[in-house]
């Protein structure tokens, strides 16, 4: 912050006395005005006072309201405010806000929505406060505001006079909040911060190992809990050797919780509370529970796969989309291709296992949790445990990975339920085995596809019978195929049917739900069609996209929701596809046998992405990704270039990792795998040698980047494998596929 030369109107201590607010500053101005109605827009959602604190010392504190799980919003969203506020980033301190949606507005982090949901408001928020500081300087100097300009934490008059923001805080605090119309936003050409590479604000704590994550929390007198659930989903604890367990070293208590009968909420189980994590873990090894495993214990993945294959040729339970006459078009096709694609259930496997710390006293609950959707956790605690929302305080900790897992609040409600029985703060720690066996999984699926080409190699027919998994009559998250999912709407004779197996298995959103698997299936099959047509995979795709610029939502039969497909800018997709192909030197390289390139694209979460993989497969079937090029169009402005690139690089590794080895066997209603030796995650040795990320700025609203880069990864890699070896991958994970060639 630049030094302020002018004397302060009010010294800091007086100022604090005036405002009566510890931490002081401009924050109060908004509060007072808000209380009067002032300039706060109707609905009470937009309360700028909650986000910015400007101390008379000049220190700027920006509160970050969104949960941070590695997606970088704790850095990128405050950057927007700082940009418009016109303060140097080095002068800003970021504080994580607690859960308080009345104060902050929505606080859920999922669906790549944090950026688009807050982008415009945060610009306005920063600019509004800057406008007030400029006005404060103008009044101090008795000059027109138009002669004053905010520059890096100071206001400068055309005469050269200068005052720091800190010196202006007291005066600014007395001003009315200007109406939106009287606030001028900084133009993108004047941005100093947005679009730059900025390291995450938690970096100093991360690299020195300071407490930060949910699991790192320590409270005086804290106890440590573990919670054993039935290995089969939804099973009940009938009895346990609790009296014995209570005699074990360090154990303070052990008890059975009934659960509320919902597999994604409070599961039945046995809690052990001890004076250390290890005492709880050790006692758990001696716990013996009699379970009533319930109805899901009869169900196995293999049985469903066999059943799907047996029913593949039958009509599906539901028609999702029907255009033209697919049977006739297939019958008349010059060439026909058919294939079965299969992918398994997988886990989120956040590296930080699920955990929550809770303290229940005097009817009030205080919670510290790494959660993506705090509102869901509070609502679940209220619903299941009867603690009113206004008696719950929820602190958001940094989360060691999200990927959609922490949209669920099962672990949070478990901790709260245990805390209700314990007269001390209690930290619930899931073991890795708990985490893998009680996730809310990405549903597996099978697709039975048939495609038809005319004599010119154009796609005239597409038929898919999709088998998915659900519960209570609804497909699991990511298990429902939109009738608008590409290439639905692009092919004249199109039939998408769906058959669902009802299970009691918990399913939940896994990074780019649905898209992360549908893109693999459809872009692999499109590649099969391109090959059958004897066409270049890029040219074939461009022809398939066609020449129109917009594809409206809807049409076709069936009742599915077109949520991700929706309105689709064909022009943006064509452009990003060409842009990426260019960056990746598509078609310009000669590959030796065993090496090759593959291409795919996908639209999801409002982002348009195309990707090219270059791979080498050794004769003994070892895959190496030599180069991976991504091109993304997420609108006008990349907020934090480093963070955005990191999300895309991470998506590439994540998409590749899911493809390579990830698979859960579900037998007798339970997950077989327990830890990373059975459920291997991608390691540095398997990461691409080179990842290149390019963004194309387009004149569209800025959107999120946590998910849209992941869907085309697997098909780009598998299409490259085909180019390299002639082997078509139709099953995930690759560890099940023989890639040897000679």
């Amino acid at each position, binding site marked *: 912050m630049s030094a302020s030369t002018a004397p302060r109107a009010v010294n800091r201590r007086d100022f604090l006395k005036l405002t009566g607010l510890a931490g002081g500053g401009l924050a109060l101005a908004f509060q007072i005005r808000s209380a009067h109605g002032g300039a706060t827009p109707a609905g009470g959602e937009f309360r700028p006072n909650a986000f910015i604190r400007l101390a008379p010392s000049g220190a700027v504190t920006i509160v970050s309201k969104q949960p941070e799980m590695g997606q970088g919003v704790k850095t990128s969203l405050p950057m927007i405010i700082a940009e418009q506020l016109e303060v140097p980033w080095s002068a800003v301190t970021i504080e994580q806000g607690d859960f308080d949606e009345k104060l902050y507005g929505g606080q859920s982090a999922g669906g790549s929505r944090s950026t688009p949901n807050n982008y415009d408001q945060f610009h306005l928020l920063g600019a509004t406060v800057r406008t007030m500081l400029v006005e404060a300087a103008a009044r101090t100097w008795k000059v027109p505001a138009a002669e004053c300009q905010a520059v890096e934490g100071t206001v400068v008059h055309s005469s050269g006079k200068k005052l720091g923001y800190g010196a202006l805080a007291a005066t600014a605090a007395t001003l009315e909040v200007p109406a939106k119309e009287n606030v001028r936003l900084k133009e993108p050409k004047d941005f100093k911060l947005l679009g730059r590479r900025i390291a995450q604000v938690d970096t100093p704590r991360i*690299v020195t190992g300071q407490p930060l994550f949910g699991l790192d929390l320590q409270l005086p007198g804290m106890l440590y809990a573990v919670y054993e659930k039935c290995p089969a989903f939804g099973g009940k604890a009938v009895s346990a050797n609790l009296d014995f367990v209570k005699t074990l070293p360090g154990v303070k208590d052990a008890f059975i919780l009934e659960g509320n009968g919902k597999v994604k909420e409070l599961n039945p189980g046995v809690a052990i509370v001890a004076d250390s994590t290890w005492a709880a873990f050790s006692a758990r090894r001696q716990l013996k529970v009699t379970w009533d495993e319930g109805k899901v214990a009869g169900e196995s993945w293999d049985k469903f796969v066999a059943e799907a294959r047996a029913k593949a040729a039958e009509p599906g339970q539901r028609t999702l989309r029907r255009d033209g006459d697919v049977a006739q078009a297939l019958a008349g096709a010059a060439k026909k291709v058919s294939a079965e694609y299969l992918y398994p259930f997988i886990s989120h496997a956040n590296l930080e296992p699920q955990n929550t710390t809770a303290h229940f006293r005097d009817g009030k609950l205080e919670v510290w949790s790494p959660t993506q959707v705090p509102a869901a956790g509070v609502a679940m605690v209220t619903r299941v445990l009867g603690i009113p929302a206004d008696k719950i305080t929820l602190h958001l900790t940094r989360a060691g990975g999200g990927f959609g897992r922490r949209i669920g609040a099962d672990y949070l409600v478990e901790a709260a339920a245990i805390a209700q029985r314990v007269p001390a703060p209690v930290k619930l720690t899931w073991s890795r085995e708990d985490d893998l066996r009680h996730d809310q999984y990405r549903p597996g699926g099978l697709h039975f596809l048939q495609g038809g080409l005319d004599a010119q190699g154009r796609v005239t027919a597409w038929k898919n019978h999709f088998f998915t998994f659900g519960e209570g009559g609804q497909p699991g998250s990511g298990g429902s195929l939109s009738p608008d999912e590409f290439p639905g709407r692009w092919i004249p004779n199109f039939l998408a049917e769906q058959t669902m197996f009802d299970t009691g298995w918990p399913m939940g959103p896994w990074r780019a739900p649905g898209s992360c698997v549908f893109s693999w299936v459809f872009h692999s099959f499109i590649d099969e069609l391109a090959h059958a047509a004897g066409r270049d995979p890029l040219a074939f795709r461009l022809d398939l996209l066609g020449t129109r610029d917009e594809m409206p939502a809807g049409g076709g039969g069936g009742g599915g929701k077109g949520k991700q497909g929706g309105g689709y800018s064909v022009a943006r997709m064509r452009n990003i596809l060409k842009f990426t192909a260019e960056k990746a030197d598509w078609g310009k390289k000669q590959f030796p046998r065993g090496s090759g390139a593959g291409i795919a694209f996908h639209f999801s979460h409002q982002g348009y992405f195309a990707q090219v993989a270059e791979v080498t497969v050794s004769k003994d079937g070892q895959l190496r990704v030599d180069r991976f090029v991504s091109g993304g169009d997420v609108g006008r402005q990349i907020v934090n270039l480093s963070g955005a690139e990191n999300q895309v690089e991470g998506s590439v590794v994540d998409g590749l990792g899911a493809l390579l080895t990830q698979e859960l066997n579900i037998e007798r209603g339970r997950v077989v795998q327990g830890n990373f030796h059975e459920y291997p995650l991608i390691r540095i040795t398997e990461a691409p040698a080179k990842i290149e990320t390019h963004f194309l700025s387009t004149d569209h609203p800025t959107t999120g980047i946590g998910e849209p880069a992941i869907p085309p990864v697997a098909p780009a890699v598998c299409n490259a494998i085909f180019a390299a070896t002639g082997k078509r991958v139709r099953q995930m994970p690759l560890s099940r596929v023989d890639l040897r060639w000679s």
Partner: protein
Amino acid sequence: MKYSLTVNGANRTVDVAPDTPLLWVLRDHLELTGTKFGCGIGQCGACTIHLNGVPARACMTPVSTVGRMKVTTIEGLAPAAGKLHPLQQAWTELDVAQCGYCQPGQLMTAAALLRDNPKPTDEDIDGALAGNICRCGTYTRIRQGIKRAGEILAGGKGVAQ
């Protein structure tokens, strides 16, 4: 049982069961939570510490086996208070972390690599870091970060950005 340990140069005494993994001694009893729990079975490397300078899995190290060995954790990686290890500097410059949960373990493994091999190739790095999972997929930045730290160590090029 009482154990006397040397952790980051300081003498610390704890009273815990002999089979308690050093991981939980550090985290629960010494309030050094930089060493992370990821799997508990030696598979992920989130709990990597140094024992006499050699990377070890704290989750697989019963406290009773530590004896007089010097324990170094991520909290003790920096050469002095207010200073950063070249790896910590490089991680900051290159914004390596995503969620950050694996990074203490990555840094501890990388520190041992860099001490023995100040100019590692990608292959050297992959070989040394193969035991450290990053669920967020920051592997390409980890490679860059280690190379950058090597440059800083060699007194090379100024700070980027």
